[in-house]
């Protein structure tokens, strides 16, 4: 039996910051919530999806809204009780466990806090294996699991239930409600059976995050290069090492779009790279050639420490490494690419897996 304790939370938070691929929100506030919840209620049991009964009711959980609001208007902690109670009484069934929908960023931490508070186990999987901006961008969606009935709860006590015709409508209605409710809310969403979860989820991602975080943390005291340690832990490849020479950002339809330009250092001297982002890093272009696209993970980390750098913190002059990490196989299907591929985000590029691009 595995338990998530305080040290594991530190490791998961760090790994999650990397899997956020530049977005997903700084896990800091979520981490403190998880730490406080564990202090009050004890460690959280982490279970393997194989150990979940097929007919059990599983309810994923997350925060929705602007991470910038989350760091100022911290949740009350009561929201999620109401969201879970709401679903429980609507479905008239007990909830067996909770699970993240998003392994990257702050939403890696929220389900740990929720599991501790509600006394539920956490299942070692998620619906993205990284961070994405919209509710239908989860592998659960690829397996025709409905996001609704869904509960949205704010700290004031408002609870909203959505029942929609499809998951894209869920995203649209929930996003607008979130803004009205103060731009940071807690959700319980994609209620599903254990059987559905085993089929649709990305497995062992919580353990994977912890492993990445631990590797980065330990690399500081070992003699190994932190970036190499990070690549080894993630199975990723190094796309570039360089210095940021320009960052531009603008808001379009609620998303921060922009790009960072890099000038090569060390082995990459004389070369350049452009990373384009919409909250998350979506496409990496080296010397004019695409070397990685969403849904593969494009992570920017500090060159000396391998600490992940978010798009909000990209700064002219920072020395960074750009890493390409293969996404889960589930995203590499036609439906996966249609949902989160480069064309969905408006790039006129076909998806080619990052390691294939590297061989070319």
């Amino acid at each position: 039996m595995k338990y998530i304790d305080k040290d594991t939370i530190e490791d998961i938070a760090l790994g999650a910051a990397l899997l956020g691929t530049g977005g997903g929100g700084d896990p800091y506030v979520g981490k403190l919530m998880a730490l406080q919840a564990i202090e009050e209620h004890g460690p959280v049991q982490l279970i393997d999806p194989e150990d979940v009964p097929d007919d059990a009711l599983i309810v994923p959980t997350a925060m929705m809204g602007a991470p910038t609001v989350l760091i100022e208007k911290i949740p009350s902690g009561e929201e999620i009780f109401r969201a879970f109670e709401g679903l429980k009484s609507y479905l008239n069934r007990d909830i067996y466990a909770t699970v993240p929908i998003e392994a990257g960023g702050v939403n890696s931490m929220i389900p740990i806090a929720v599991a501790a508070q509600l006394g539920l186990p956490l299942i070692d999987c998620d619906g993205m294996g990284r961070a994405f901006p919209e509710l239908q961008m989860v592998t659960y969606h690829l397996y025709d699991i409905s996001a609704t009935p869904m509960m949205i709860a704010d700290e004031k006590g408002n609870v909203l239930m959505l029942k929609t015709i499809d998951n894209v409508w869920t995203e649209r209605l929930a996003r607008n409600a979130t803004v009205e409710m103060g731009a940071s809310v807690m959700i319980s969403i994609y209620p599903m059976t254990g059987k559905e979860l085993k089929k649709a989820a990305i497995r062992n991602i919580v353990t994977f995050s912890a492993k990445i975080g631990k590797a980065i943390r330990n690399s500081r005291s070992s003699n190994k290069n932190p970036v190499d340690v990070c690549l080894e832990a993630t199975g990723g490849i190094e796309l570039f090492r360089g210095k940021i020479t320009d960052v531009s950002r603008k808001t379009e339809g609620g998303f921060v779009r922009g790009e960072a330009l890099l000038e090569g250092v060390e082995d990459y001297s004389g070369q350049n790279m452009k990373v384009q982002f919409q909250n998350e890093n979506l496409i990496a272009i080296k010397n004019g050639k695409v070397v990685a696209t969403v849904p593969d993970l494009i992570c920017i980390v500090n060159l000396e420490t391998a600490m992940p750098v978010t798009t909000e913190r990209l700064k002219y002059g920072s020395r960074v490494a750009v890493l390409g990490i293969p996404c889960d196989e589930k995203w590499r299907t036609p439906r996966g690419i249609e949902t989160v591929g480069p064309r969905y985000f408006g790039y006129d590029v076909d998806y080619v897996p990052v390691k294939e691009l590297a061989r070319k």
Partner: protein
Amino acid sequence: MKYRLGIDVGGTNTDAVIIDNDLNLIAKVKVPTTADVSTGIYEAMHHVLEESGVERDKIEYAMLGTTHCTNAIVERKRLNRVGVLRLGKPATEAIKPMTGWPEDLVEKIGRQYFLTGGGHEFDGRPISAFDENEVRKIMRDLKGKVDSIAVISVFSPVSSEHEERVAAIIREELGDFPVSLSHQIGSIGLLERENATILNAALVEVAKTTAEGFIKALEKENVTSAKVYLCQNDGTLMSADYAMKYPILTIACGPTNSIRGASFLAKNKDAIVLDVGGTTSDIGVVTNGFPRESAVAVDIGGVRTNFRMPDLISIGVGGGTIIRELDGEIKIGPDSVGYRISEEALVFGGNTLTATDLAVRLGMCEVGDKSKVQHIDLKFAEKCFEKIKSMVEQAIEKIKLSSEPQPLILVGGGSILIPDELEGISEVIRPENYEIANAFGASIAQVSGQVEKIFDLSKMTREEAIKEAKETAKQEAIKAGADLDSVEVVEVEDVPLAYLPGNAIRIRVKATGDLKG
């Protein structure tokens, strides 16, 4: 002619200068920093006034940059007991005040914290009703249990209304009582702002003693008509009255003064600044006459805060840095003989090989007894300097903003260690009076106003929002004592908020101006 007195307290020395109102240097002194800090300040003040021969009633401004507050937090000494009131309930209950603080610091400050209704949403709507009776009751309960009160309301950088209302109630209930309001101290990010506000409240007594002690010492020297200021970490000043209310803003003003002073002495507003001390060298960047600020959260005494600090890289290279050779490999520091250099360095008859000894051997400077380092192999000395040079170059490379070569201003007593040719540097500038750049920085500091707010762009254009923010910042600067005609906007930053439709942006603007003459 009227004059200014500037004093800066450093880890090793306390420097003082007198400059005239046209900013010409009249007198300078350096005395060792004392354990109680204050004695060193009075000493430096006395000597510099004597040396300048300036008539005491002609001193118009007196500025102090000091480490009193930093030391109090780091040493956990003389801190106030603080009552903490956070407004925003039911929001924010998931993380209690002072979460993640070192236990010994929480012990000193006490655990008198309360959460109550109030606070605002990102767009200025109230989260919940402000409960006046509840606030009154809390204040009556706190009476006699705390020395100082910190008030933190959710999104107070957007709307400070509820913090101001609490301040009014405290005045009614407790009279003239020290109150720290978070919107005056930090920006968006509740926990970091709250931490800084609580630390601020804990420092009120230390700040009062420091400021009043400085004023008394001035009076003792017959400097009675001067306006008294303390230096902030953003390179601007605050009046002694304001400093007694917001002492946390004085933390780490030393590096800022050094960068500002270096910029002025070198007559260069955009450059890299390298301040070489006895133990470490600090590298910072001056942009438009002000230090570039750090973008990451800053830890003070183990507490995470988000207030304005200069972006600095420190490396273990200074005049007293110990040089060793291990298995044929040269090791530079990071330890140093520090203030004991005058006993331990070879040129002063000691037994430790320091960076200064090598500089003397290579004829880069003349200090102490040259003959005591003649035995050092010239090639070895050169190799050591190659290594120091490359350490400095790496740090410069890290802090630089563009690949274009930039000028470097060199200040501090140890700057003789640095060569005139450096990778990535267009020109090395060694200004006159480089050794008192810090105190000079203190005496030329300006006053500023800053605003940080989230704007909803469905109601106005980005340009209108920035215009409004600029106007507010200018008004804040004038309120702080700036001369109307000299006020200018020195920094505008806007960051769109992620994952929100409706285009909200966070705008931060800083305006500064010269002190009213």
